[in-house]
């Protein structure tokens, strides 16, 4: 279990001294109606390993995962391998750019894998076909089981080189897997790679579980569980599977998240009809009360520098979004538009807050600046909520439920994602119905 998620040795060796300016460039701040044609050559296998059938396939599998990542990002158009003229081995040494230009590729990814002493060594190159130059070359070593992460790391490096932004492919998503009729729903915590692979269940479904979140270090998860019919915030260690309740509260705690440094849990505590926001330091176990108001205060979200907290309060009469300093002082309302606002989530870039808005019976996912200005609604639906940011602050994942008929038939819950630009809205495939998604930070730091 541990080996799957840790790379033993991750040494990035840049073996090209030339870093040319790119003629190939992608602007991810604008809606991309013209995805960049990119050719991903299957990674070829070192001659020493040619007899290893299983290993031979890994090179092709890695390129397929990379293509999947590129395609789903909406920014790239991976070209069909059937049109490739050059053999992977030769292309990796010296591509004949004319051949690649013929199939309209503007960028080319080539690579090589080698199995030595039970370790997987990977080398890849990114070529600017238009300028006929190599623009990125990296090598690293890991365990063979990690070949999917190899693909995600390469995807991130290519994405970063071509867009100027960090990628989001070497990440996982935690969510709630759902099944059964609405009035007897079985819910389990589940985790998967962002491309849907490696799906695993973290709880058995014996008790209701809701709203999981990753810690910044990605090894811990916090969530709400109705274990023994007592709704409380819990911590779960993904590697050991050990769960523990957070604090010793005499009533329901819910809506938990980690602070950006991972040292605290912030959550709501409900008592006597009032919900306030509290933090608990995981080390010292010191509990601090952050809001103190007879209204419902919930769904807290820290700014990435930890200095501010956005949260949901109905102190004005209806659900709105507020921002306060992380010690609870200086509370300011930031939403004033028509409708209800909920689930504020501060972007990892610090510049925007994503939210759910409800107006005239319709649900919207939107973003706004941290002072509430510049509200932009990205998508509208019968029911959707709870956006979560990719670690580069460019993509939002959320969930939707369909309208059921009077008998409750036709109901489904699914994960969806959309770019910050409002483009590339798509459903994320899960084995079961799904809700409450949360995006991890990059697994490679």
């Amino acid at each position, binding site marked *: 279990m541990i080996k799957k998620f840790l790379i033993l040795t991750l040494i990035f060796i840049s073996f090209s001294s030339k870093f040319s300016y790119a003629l190939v460039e992608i602007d991810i701040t604008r809606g991309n109606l013209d995805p960049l044609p990119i050719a991903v050559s299957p990674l070829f296998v070192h001659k020493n390993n040619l007899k290893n059938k299983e290993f031979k396939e890994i090179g092709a599998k890695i390129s397929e995962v990379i293509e999947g990542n590129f395609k789903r990002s909406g920014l790239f158009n991976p070209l069909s391998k059937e049109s490739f003229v050059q053999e992977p081995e030769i292309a990796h040494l010296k591509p004949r750019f004319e051949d690649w230009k013929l199939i309209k590729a503007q960028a080319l990814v080539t690579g090589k894998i080698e199995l030595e002493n039970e370790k997987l060594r990977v080398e890849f190159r990114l070529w600017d076909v238009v300028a006929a130059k190599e623009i990125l070359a990296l090598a690293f070593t890991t365990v063979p089981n990690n070949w999917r992460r190899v693909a995600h790391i390469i995807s991130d490096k290519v994405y970063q080189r071509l867009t100027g932004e960090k990628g989001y492919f070497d990440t996982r998503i935690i969510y709630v897997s759902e099944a059964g009729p609405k009035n007897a729903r079985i819910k389990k915590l589940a985790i998967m790679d962002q491309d849907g692979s490696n799906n695993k269940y973290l709880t058995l479904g014996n008790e209701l579980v809701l709203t999981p979140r990753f810690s910044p270090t990605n090894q811990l998860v916090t969530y709400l569980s109705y274990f023994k019919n007592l709704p409380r915030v819990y911590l779960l260690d993904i590697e050991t599977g050990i769960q523990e309740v957070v604090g010793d509260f005499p009533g329901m705690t819910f*809506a938990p998240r980690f602070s950006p440094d991972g040292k605290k849990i912030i959550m*709501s505590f*409900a008592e006597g*009809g009032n919900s306030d926001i509290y933090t608990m330091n995981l080390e010292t176990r010191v509990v601090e009360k952050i809001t103190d108001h007879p209204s419902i205060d919930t769904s807290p979200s820290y700014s990435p520098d930890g200095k501010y907290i956005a949260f949901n309060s109905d102190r004005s009469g209806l659900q709105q979004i507020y921002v306060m300093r992380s010690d609870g002082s200086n509370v300011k309302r930031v939403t004033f538009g028509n409708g209800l606002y909920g689930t504020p989530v501060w972007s990892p870039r610090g510049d925007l807050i994503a939210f759910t808005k*409800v107006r005239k019976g319709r649900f919207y996912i939107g973003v706004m600046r941290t002072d509430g200005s510049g509200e932009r609604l990205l998508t509208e639906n019968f029911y959707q909520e709870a956006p979560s940011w990719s670690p580069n602050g460019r993509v939002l994942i959320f969930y939707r439920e369909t309208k*059921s008929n*009077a008998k*409750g038939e036709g109901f489904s819950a699914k994960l969806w994602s959309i770019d910050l630009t409002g483009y590339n809205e798509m459903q994320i495939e899960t084995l079961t119905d799904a809700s409450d998604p949360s995006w991890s930070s990059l697994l490679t730091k």
Partner: protein
Amino acid sequence: MNSMKLIKYFMITALCSVLLSACATSKKGAVLEGDVYAGNETVEYLATGVKDRVFFATNKSTLTTASRDTLRKQAAWLRKNGKISVTIEGHADERGTREYNLALGERRANAVKDYLMTYGISGKRLAVISYGKERPVNNGSTPLAWSQNRRSVTVKAD
């Protein structure tokens, strides 16, 4: 009577009949009063004549006249049966964000608990739990279903 008085008399009568007919909103079959469910489907009984639940308007936790009547009967039943403890469940409909609905359910359950306590029932006998929108009683996505789901249910503790 002089004509002014006669006109006044007719106007008052007309006004009263308009008001009275407006009060008859509960036509046969209409089960929503404003936004609050007023029917008996989904209602169960703790004892003869003692309904186990009350209903709420959207986003609200205020008790209607009908709710208070139900809760007075629950209080009387609890007074008569001093050994019984209950759990008060708070629920919300699906038309809201999940976390806020958990808090709203808790607020509704406590509105019921507070009212029962004003009738002398000890808080120690009244546990509270919120299920937010997680346990609907009606699986439909219709205003009627939603109104039946906006509820607080009093359940005998084991």
